[in-house]
C-alpha cells in the first residue's frame, strides 16, 4: 500500500499556495493598529486559505480533498443561501440509513470530522481518515514553521 503521508511535491505545493495567499492578504497599514474585527476576519481568511491550499495541493485524488474544495467553492459563491441544499438532503438520508444499521457513535463522530465523511462507507471513511490525518499533520507542520520564521 502506498504511504498516506504527503510527498514532498504535495507539501511544496501546499506551502507555495498558502504563502501566495498570505502575501495577497497584506495591505498597506492604515492609521493605527488593525481593529479586533479586522484581525478576526483575517484569521478566518488565513484558516480558509490553509485548508483550501492543502486540498488543492492534494487535488481531486482523494474524496476528502474533493469534498473540502466543494465546500470552499460553495462558501465563496453562494454565501450560505443555496449552499449544500442538495448535500444536506443526501446527508440526512445517509445518516438515517446508518443509524438504522446500528453503527457506533464513534464512527459518526469521525464522519463529522473528515470532509465528505458523512456519505462514505466504513472502508472509504477509514482510508480517507488516514490520508486526511497525515495531510493535516503536514499542514500544521508547515504553518508552524511559517510562524517560527515570522517570529524571528
Amino acid at each position, binding site marked *: 500500500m502506498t504511504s498516506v503521508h504527503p510527498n*514532498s511535491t504535495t507539501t511544496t505545493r501546499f506551502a507555495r499556495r498558502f504563502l501566495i495567499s498570505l502575501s495577497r492578504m497584506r495591505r498597506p497599514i492604515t492609521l493605527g*493598529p488593525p481593529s479586533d474585527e479586522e484581525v478576526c476576519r*483575517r484569521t478566518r481568511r488565513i484558516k480558509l486559505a490553509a485548508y483550501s491550499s492543502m486540498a488543492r495541493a492534494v487535488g481531486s485524488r482523494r474524496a476528502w480533498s474533493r469534498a473540502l474544495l466543494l465546500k470552499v467553492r460553495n462558501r465563496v459563491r453562494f454565501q450560505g443561501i443555496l449552499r449544500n441544499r442538495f448535500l444536506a438532503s443526501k446527508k440526512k438520508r445517509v445518516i438515517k440509513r446508518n443509524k438504522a444499521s446500528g453503527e457506533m457513535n464513534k464512527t459518526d463522530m469521525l464522519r463529522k470530522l473528515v470532509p465528505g465523511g458523512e456519505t462514505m462507507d466504513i*472502508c472509504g471513511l477509514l482510508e480517507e481518515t488516514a490520508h486526511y*490525518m497525515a495531510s493535516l499533520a503536514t499542514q*500544521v507542520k508547515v504553518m508552524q*514553521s*511559517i510562524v517560527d*520564521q515570522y517570529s524571528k
Partner: protein
Amino acid sequence: MSSRRSRSRQSSGVSRISDDQIIDLVSKLQQLIPELRNRGSDKVSASKVLQETCNYIRNLHREVDDLSDRLSQLLASTDSDSAQAAIIRSLLMD
C-alpha cells in the same frame, strides 16, 4: 493489496466489507496516531483507535485555528518583505 481489488469489484450500495479489511484499515490508522503508535499493534481495541483518531483530528483542527490566529497577528505587525523571502527560501529549499 487484494482486499482493495475485491472491494472495487463489488457493486455499490450494499457492499460486503470483510472484517479483515476493517481490521487492516484500523491498524493502519493506529500507526498514524502518535498516542498509539508506540503501543503493541495488537493490544489496542478498534474502539480506542477510533476514539483517539477523533481526538487527534480535533487537536489538529485546534492547532490550525491557533496557528491561523498567530499568523493573523504576525501579518498585522510584520512589515518586511524580506521576512517573506526568508520563509519561502527556508521552506522550499528543504
